[in-house]
């Protein structure tokens, strides 16, 4: 289970880094969303992977750590808001600048840039 889990997290992270390094805003936003999935899975695993246990101390000898679950919930909520904002921003940039290139397409007029 641990191997499968870590391969999943690793694959997600690798793909997201590839997407984040692209030059257009849409793949970057997708990449960042994917990175946040990977991060959430990773955070979840920091309490160690335990099967079929309650996150409550005292009822039974074995339990699963409840704190990472709380952290992941918080991270999901924040990540969701941030993704929404970045999508809206990317759409605005596409609409107002007419391109979804993250950097200025014509770099040759350095004088015009302040």
């Amino acid at each position: 289970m641990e191997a499968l889990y870590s391969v999943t997290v690793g694959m997600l992270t690798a793909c997201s880094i590839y997407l984040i390094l692209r030059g257009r805003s849409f793949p970057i936003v997708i990449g960042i969303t994917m990175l946040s999935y990977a991060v959430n899975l990773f955070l979840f695993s920091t309490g160690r992977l335990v099967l079929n246990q309650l996150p409550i101390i005292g009822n039974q000898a074995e339990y699963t750590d409840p704190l990472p679950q709380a952290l992941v919930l918080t991270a999901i909520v924040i990540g969701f808001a941030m993704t929404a904002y970045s999508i809206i921003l990317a759409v605005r940039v596409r609409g107002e600048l007419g391109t979804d290139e993250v950097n200025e397409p014509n770099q040759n007029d350095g004088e015009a840039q302040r």
Partner: protein
Amino acid sequence: MLDQHLVILPLLIPMLAALLQLLPWGEEPQRYRRAIGIISCLALIGVAVTLFIQSQHGPSVYALGSWQAPYGIVLVVDKLSALMVLLTALLALPVLWYACYGEDNLGSHFQALFQFQLLGILGAFLTGDLFNLFVFFEILLISSYALLMHGGGKQKLRATLHYVLLNLTGSAIFLIALGVIYGITGTLNMADLAVKVANLQADDAHIARVGGLLLLIVFALKAALLPLYFWLPQAYAMTTGTVAALFAIMTKVGIYAIIRVFTLIFGEDSGAAALLGYDWLWWLGLGTLAIGGIGVIGSRDLRLVIAYLVVISVGTMLTTFSMNSERSITAVMYYMLHSTFITAALFLIVDVVAKQRGKTSSRIIKGRKMAQHAILGMMFFAAAIAIIGMPPFSGFIGKLFILEAARTGAQVALLWPLVLGSTFLVMVSLSRAGSRMFWHTFDGKPGDVSSPRGQLIAIGLLLLAIVGLTVFAGSISNFINGIAYDVMHPAAYIEAVLGKEYSYE
């Protein structure tokens, strides 16, 4: 009763103010919103001063919901946090005052976003929990995303897009770092981490070091250290002057986080993970200084020059911090106070200048005379002297502290030329800008756009803070010495959080 809950007031005041400001206030909402904002800032100053006085008697800890550390979340006010809270409060009032003369009408909900921004910044200074630090970072980031866009415009859009995408990636790295550290120590409370990290052995210590260095990357991104500073000049130069002035404190949040985490958790007494990242900070800080100097001399726009001045100040502070002595922490703190006020003042001055010059705006070229030429010229002159670091203002004292903090030969050999060299470049650049914009003006009628007196008074208040820093340099440096001692000897902090003597039961 109020005494016990004093620690959380700096968070509650801006939050309540922002919520009130979001209410529909009828026909002329802006008047009420401004009043609420100003009252909130005044109250913050009052609370910050009280906290500051209280912090002299040792750190106070506020356990939220009475869940004691290390299980619950705590807010901690020690001398360092108290000073940062006071600095933020003192910066916020003049900037908000300046914004109330029409700047806040350029986009919707400036006032509420301003308060949310304060909430995030103050929270980051007060929290004693790493995950909570992440949450407050996100609060200050999401309001800063919106504030950067304030006023609209195509150039702002691109700069904001860069800023947002970079910081979203930074947040992901922050979470990974937290996961790594939690996985190995089982806690995220800073004081508890300090104890647990010090006891880690062999492999575990290496993993903790990885987590620590990931944290350093995130904080360096916020502080704009060398390879991660590219977002700053564009973002600060493109946004409106008020927002840029408020953001004078934003890079300091990153520097505060570095000071807090890397003295408390990865400080001298942290066993296998001791003094993590200090050598990186030294070299990257020096590089940042050099790049900032080049940026200052190469910019054709006064806003961009000031944005690069922020980069220089970050390099100066982090290099000095990495020398890791009480003397260097004193120097960093004094310089931090100085550079926050002076950068904010300069951003506001340039904003006024750009408005009054009309078409030539803040570009460093010959333009027409401004309506309030004399007073703006004098303000710019005073601010320039202060930031260059010439006597008699606090910049001189700050630079003196920093140069004096370098002790060994190698430190002197690298730090002195870079600090003095960048100072020289700043002087050349600012005198060029000043003489082009204020002396070599076109003959003829001055421009007819004049600024309300209130805005000039707001800038004057920030300059007054610089004068205050200079006049009371002695007593301020005495107080900062106390901070430096506490930072280098975190035992009192740890005992206050984990020990039995809670100030709040």
